[in-house]
């Protein structure tokens, strides 16, 4: 490769002692996360290295805890400096940008006026108290979202809060929180929204989407949606009173945690942890009986893992709490309770009847998979055998898609 074709990224990697071989390996992992063949790695590498003018982006914090920003700071493939300096030009990024006040606001105005940018939105959409539960520089959070989304090529809603309101919309939803796509639909803003749930978002997924958008789709949102396999999950938004078809990348959110869990073999053998932190946990037995929500939660956490692949929830001994699900707190709490116990009544907490039905679907899904239906080689995504769109048990009982309504 000619010297002049090297980007700042290449220089940075060289400074840090990252070889070209390592870099290609990384591009392979990006490809895997995208559900592409790893043979795409050289093309991904070429696209990253050859980047000229950077595409602009705005990272907007709504009703957030800043956890998704923290999360993107944990990515090492590449690190956040590379993402914000060499992939995209983040003209606004509240938590890490140098400028503040007016100087920062001006960046939003100029970027929106110029167009051709993407928005990454973190946090819930705050509609409570007539929208004054989030007030920045005299503007309501909802107004800021409408403003930045209206002229954007696409919006990536990162973290469960941005997807549907997350924990903030849990009963009794005191601040009347909702998600980005629901709010834009209500405001008739047609900019496409791609949803990346979990609490916080896994940063590898953001990188995967950004690479997909830049490389495969040439920063064209329509093309992006066409070439990226998606699954749709429908929610009824109580805040807007509308039904919303949320769009999720299938390579990431197409299969349950249970489908790919390394502890799956113990589930098949009936080997369970019945007490947290016990001798059974030391043997990595299945956490289903202490409340694991892996069977009803559609993410590829066991494959991508967390914090630069250091570990993930189940590996550390904790049952999955289903933070990648919809209305995840109400649907999954009490977190330490087996799903089959939750449907028996009396201990359902704030879960409403409709929710309980969805939870039952999750249990059934687990049982069906245990009988060999929809089995899939653990640890693989993308090019494996196709998964059923809907488990047979759920179909019979009228659930919409899978166990996770």
């Amino acid at each position, binding site marked *: 490769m000619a010297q002049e074709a090297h980007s700042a990224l290449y220089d940075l990697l060289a400074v840090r002692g990252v070889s070209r071989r390592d870099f290609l390996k990384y591009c392979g992992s990006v490809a895997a996360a995208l559900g592409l063949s790893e043979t795409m790695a050289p093309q991904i590498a070429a696209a990253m290295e050859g980047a000229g003018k950077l595409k602009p982006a705005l990272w907007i914090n709504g009703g957030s805890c800043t*956890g998704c920003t923290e999360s993107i700071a944990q990515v090492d493939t590449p690190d956040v400096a590379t993402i914000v300096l060499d992939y995209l030009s983040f003209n606004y990024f509240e938590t890490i940008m140098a*400028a503040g006040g007016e100087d920062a606001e*001006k960046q939003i105005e100029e970027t929106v006026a110029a167009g051709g940018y993407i928005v990454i939105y973190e946090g819930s959409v705050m509609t409570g108290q007539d929208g004054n539960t989030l007030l920045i520089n005299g503007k309501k959070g909802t107004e800021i979202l409408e403003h930045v989304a209206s002229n954007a090529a696409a919006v990536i809603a990162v973290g469960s809060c941005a997807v549907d309101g997350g924990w903030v919309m849990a009963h*009794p939803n005191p601040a009347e*929180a909702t998600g980005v796509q629901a709010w834009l639909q209500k405001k008739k803003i047609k900019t496409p929204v791609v949803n990346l749930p979990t609490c916080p978002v896994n940063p590898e997924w953001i990188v995967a989407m950004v690479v997909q958008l830049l490389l495969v789709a040439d920063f064209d949102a329509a093309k992006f949606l066409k070439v990226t396999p998606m699954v749709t999950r429908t929610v009824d938004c109580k805040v807007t009173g509308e039904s919303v078809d949320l769009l999720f990348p299938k390579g990431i959110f197409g299969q349950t945690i249970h489908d790919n869990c390394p502890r799956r073999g113990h589930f098949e053998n009936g080997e369970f942890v019945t007490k947290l932190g016990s001798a059974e946990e030391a043997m990595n037995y299945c956490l289903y009986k202490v409340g694991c929500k892996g069977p009803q939660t559609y993410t590829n956490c066991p494959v991508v893992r967390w914090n630069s692949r250091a570990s993930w929830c189940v590996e550390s001994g904790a049952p999955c709490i289903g933070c990648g699900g919809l209305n995840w707190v109400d649907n999954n709490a009490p977190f330490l309770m087996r799903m089959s116990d939750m449907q028996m009544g009396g201990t359902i907490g704030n879960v409403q009847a409709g929710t309980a039905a969805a939870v039952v679907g999750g249990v059934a899904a687990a049982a069906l998979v245990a009988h060999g239906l929809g089995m899939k080689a653990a640890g693989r995504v993308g090019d494996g055998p196709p998964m059923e769109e809907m488990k047979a048990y759920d179909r019979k009982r009228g659930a919409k898609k899978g166990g996770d309504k």
Partner: protein
Amino acid sequence: MARTVIDPLTRIEGHLRVEVEVTDGKVSDAWVTGELWRGMELILENRHPEDAFWISQRICGVCPISHSHASAQSTEQALGIKIPNNARIIRNLIEAAQYLHSHILWFYTLAALDFVNPVNALSANIADTYALAQAAGTRVADFGAVQKRLAGFVENGQFSIFSGHLGWWGVGEEKHPGYALPPELDLIATAHYLEALELQGVAAQIIAVMSGKFPHHMTSIPGGTAFVPTEQKLDDILFRFTRVKEFIDTALIPDTLAIAPFILDTASYGAGCKNFLSWGVFESADMDPYTRSLPRGFIEGAKGLSVMEVGPEMVTEDVEHAWYDSPSGLNPAKGETAAKFTSLDVNDKYSWGKAARLNGLPAEVGPLSRMLVAYVDGVPEVKKIIDDTLGVLSKAAGAKLGPEVLLSLLGRIAARNLEAKVVADWSIGWVLELVEAIKGGDSAYFVTERGSDGDGAGLWEAPRGSVGHWMSVKGGKISKYQIVAPTTWDIAPRNADGVRGPMEEALVGSPCVDAKRPLEALRIAHSFDP
């Protein structure tokens, strides 16, 4: 007299607005506004007490570990649970990893850009940079490559996260006089800014190994921990703690000491209310908050540098100037949260933050409070590092400086970095303590026995300051939940008597040499890590 508004205040967690009144180049009054309300406390009501561990930590994505630990403690107190010793050590280690992560991220990613000028680094002489790094005892990087990368970035004309700030650094307008480091030091700091991003991530990986992921972790469940260490995992933790400690020893501390002589003016302002609270953090085997590694205590400024005992009953929250119509002055055990927005009016109500008070006084929380309490209490490691640092500062100032000088903006900045060093040193010892306990045959990590009803107050310390979770459990469900977060203390608005909160008070009297570019105010706000 002129008003300057910073909104949004960037490089912090969450949404904050700062308004200052400037008279003759000095801040004469200040108002700090918390701009977001989500209602966590109401969401926790009627849920199973254990669930608060997972839900309540999501109030903050930068210090979720500390919130979850305060929450778990309140559940354990309410239900009469005593956690096993191994769980105590594991929680300390997870907490320590978050401290190291948070302090590194704060200094380099959030605060440094108030002092460091990456544009100025372009004129650094590379050989001189290596010489300076050696003289300062700070780690070297490929300074030439970093400078080249910076040059390419500036030439490219797309400034990404630096957009809108280059004028302050002297591009296209006059440089703000507050950026006063020599170019070689700017280059060193910029190189470490990039390296710090990697190291804060290594610290967070420790949490992932022991607790699934960061932010928002999984295993410190009321009753103990779900994490059962293996030899491999202990190794994964120890080598990462060692790596992070090395960075703190060879970059964070020497960088702090190298920059300090150029910002000595910050020792003369920014002290604030001079009341300092610490609930105490890093549990000792006897589970007594006064024997925690960083102990509990309160310093009341009017009474000088002496420490008194404190308890949860001394806390109240006033709402005269906050958007609530629940009663003012309630103790959190009886606290209420009824949101009611009116309008943003600094003469009336102007914040979503309640005004937390201790014995009726505003109280600063955070590393400065913890280090002062520990220093006065005579914690040896803290006493040594503060005395050593005062020695270095005295030399730079040409006068003997006592611990009083820490009651300043400079002190607040230094305290955070010195604390990182103390915690990094301790963390290695705590890994070995866990190894010894396991070798000795201790295999208990979690207890399942628990009562069904009771009241609890989990009082703990996040990297950014004191955190309290109050919980009442009736019939096996949470009947009341109240949180007093670190930022609730530091960004508190005025109370009924018009007494300013700690950040407001710290701003008053500080210089403001350029009212359009209020760099000093930014530094003070950032120094609280709000």
